[in-house]
């Protein structure tokens, strides 16, 4: 703990952030054209200057102020000091790392990937998906396993948990009711089958290999539900021995990490879409943090994959209390002679093990569906928001409209609905409803003319809207996730993974591979189309 000593760490980190942001701001005003801006241009990160300056100034100011406080008066053991003041330095450092990954490493790898393409025959940056999320996880992972996390950062790294929760809660605002219903039903079916299937498989294997019941219990919860988190919830209930916990957590972490790094490239090679990958990762990857990471590694630019994966993830998390109950009953049965007096308190388990942030997620979703985050005329449809308010800016150019008119007259469109939609487009000069936008997009199938296809796409794009509040929330959400995942990368230690051993390892590998492969085929065969 960096508790008792006066630590300058937070102040230093805060000032670094501030200075960087202010430097960028001055460059932006073109006061001093310099090396930093040239680097930005070289990396094609010029567009992100606004965000960089904004986040830098805010975070830098707050962290510096706390830094001064920490320097004048050492952080004590009070709750506020432990939760707010002590983590400042580490949290600031992680923001700096997020900056590095997002604005420097990712563009750098993009350039290198392109540069190496002729020599390698493929772009390694795209195939491996070397985006800032993956680079962040890797950076954290390499950092902790080589130089280790210094003392002044340790309590800051733990705030990653909070950031992950904040990320998932804000994600709640990004769903429409139709999406949630569709994804919810799909995930409920898949997760039920896979959670139950894996739990039974692990328990059966444990019996075959004659593994002690506590170890079998922890392993089955971890393999079936959500990895280390499930193991943590189940261990006290099945009275796991110390070594059982080390064995199974090491195993879960190992299988999870392998999944995290293999799922995205495999999906990219076979050409999965967002929905398919989200469903696969959400079912097949063990640890819930790694699900979010895999989804963002697969697709960091839109949040579609993340949305699918997190619904699966949350469904899985909701299963956790029930699996713990089943394990508790199963375990109590075997231990009857030991302590006949202790009965399983079902109600308490459900209340205790229910992850509260899921409520936050649901509240955000509820708020969002009442429309508080979006202007009144915005409607969410598919991936995008639309606004159909009549506006000159949304109108198509006259020569494009003439093309559409000619297309209608050519009689190529056989579907009367689409024809009507196109006629209305010509009359109004813009799209005016959700149904119409779908029909206009469908009209692309009736022509091979690339220009005409583009006209239809443009017509759709012009009525798309970007609600400001949600855009800002999305930006912050990505920061939460980037921050959280760097921190969680820093918790994947070889020291823990190497505990994996004994029969637990065999069972873990069998169950992990079975789950990953089966869920791949289920997704591949049964989940088609997009959200």
């Amino acid at each position, binding site marked *: 703990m960096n508790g008792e000593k006066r630590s300058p760490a937070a102040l230093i980190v805060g000032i670094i952030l501030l200075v960087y942001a202010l430097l960028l701001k001055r460059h932006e005003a073109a006061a001093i054209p310099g090396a930093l801006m040239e680097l930005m241009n070289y990396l094609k990160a010029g567009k992100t200057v606004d965000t960089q300056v904004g986040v830098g100034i805010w975070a830098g100011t707050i962290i510096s102020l706390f830094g001064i406080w920490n320097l004048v008066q050492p952080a004590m053991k009070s709750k506020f000091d432990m939760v707010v003041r002590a983590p400042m330095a580490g949290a600031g450092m992680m923001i700096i790392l997020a900056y590095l990954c997002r604005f420097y490493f990712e563009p750098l790898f993009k350039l290198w990937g392109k540069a190496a393409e002729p020599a390698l025959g493929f772009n390694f940056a795209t195939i491996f998906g070397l985006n800032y999320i993956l680079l962040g996880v890797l950076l954290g992972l390499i950092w902790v396993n080589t130089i280790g996390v210094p003392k002044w950062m340790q309590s800051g790294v733990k705030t990653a948990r909070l950031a992950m929760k904040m990320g998932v809660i804000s994600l709640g605002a990004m769903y429409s009711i139709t999406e949630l219903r569709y994804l919810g039903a799909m995930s409920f079916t898949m997760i039920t089958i896979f959670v139950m299937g894996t739990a039974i498989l692990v328990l059966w294997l444990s019996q075959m290999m004659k593994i002690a019941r506590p170890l079998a219990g922890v392993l089955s919860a971890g393999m079936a539900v959500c990895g280390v*988190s499930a193991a943590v919830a189940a261990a006290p209930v099945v009275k796991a021995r110390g070594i059982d916990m080390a064995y199974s*957590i090491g195993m879960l972490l190992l299988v999870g990490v392998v999944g995290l790094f293999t799922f995205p490239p495999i999906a990219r090679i076979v050409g999965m879409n967002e929905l398919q990958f989200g469903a696969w990762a959400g079912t097949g990857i063990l640890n*819930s943090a790694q699900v979010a990471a895999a989804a963002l590694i697969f697709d960091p630019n839109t949040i579609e994959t993340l949305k699918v994966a997190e619904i699966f993830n949350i469904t899985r998390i909701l299963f956790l209390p029930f699996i713990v109950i089943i394990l508790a009953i199963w375990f109590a049965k075997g231990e009857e002679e030991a302590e006949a007096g202790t009965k399983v308190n079902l109600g308490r388990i459900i209340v205790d093990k229910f*992850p509260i942030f899921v409520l936050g997620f649901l509240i955000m979703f509820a708020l969002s569906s009442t429309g508080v985050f979006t202007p009144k005329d915005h409607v969410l449809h598919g991936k995008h928001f639309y606004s159909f308010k009549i506006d000159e800016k949304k109108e198509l150019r006259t020569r494009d409209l003439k093309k559409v008119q000619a297309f209608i007259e050519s009689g190529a469109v056989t579907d009367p609905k689409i024809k009507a939609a196109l006629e209305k487009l010509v009359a109004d000069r813009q799209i005016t409803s959700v149904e119409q936008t779908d029909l206009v997009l469908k009209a692309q199938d009736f022509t091979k003319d690339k220009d005409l296809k583009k006209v239809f796409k443009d017509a759709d794009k012009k009525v798309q809207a970007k609600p400001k509040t949600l855009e800002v929330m999305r930006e912050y959400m990505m920061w939460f996730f980037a921050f959280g995942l760097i921190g969680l990368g820093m*918790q994947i230690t070889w020291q823990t993974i190497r505990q994996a051993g004994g029969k637990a390892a065999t069972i873990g590998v069998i169950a992990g591979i079975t789950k990953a492969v089966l869920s791949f085929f289920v997704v591949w065969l049964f989940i088609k189309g997009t959200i």
Partner: protein
Amino acid sequence: MFKRILIATHGTEGAKKAESYAIGLAREFGAEIHGLYVIHKDLGSLVGIEWLHNSHVRMEFYRHAESEFNRRAEEVLEAFRELATGIEVTPAIRVGDPVEVIADEARNKGADLIIIGGSSNGRSEEYKAKVSLKKLSKIAPCPVLIANNTSMISAREVVWSLARQIKN
């Protein structure tokens, strides 16, 4: 020659060897034994990647884990005490980096010999951790005896070879 022997044990195969050495030597010299079980500090970060529970669930896990680790430690030390009949054994359980704790404990208790087990080749039922013998030999306040996996030689032989080493 030896008055206080510190033995660090985990109850594993390698440690069992160390235990026999300690008992043999203690009998030979009429020394007392400090039995030390170190709970590795990294066990605290076992649940690192876990993020979704509230602090209540985490605390429950930590409490459970703590009591389990302590129970195991007590078992190991108790078994050792039973083995060392007629020798005065003071048990101690401490949490930390094994090397640092062993050296520290030896210093505090005024031990004049540290005995630890060598790496065991077989599967161990314990938390796996690298113990840097180099570091231990550097910071230990007294000689360190490493009980390896080769066949037992008589305690006297060991002591003589040790004594020769110390002289040089």
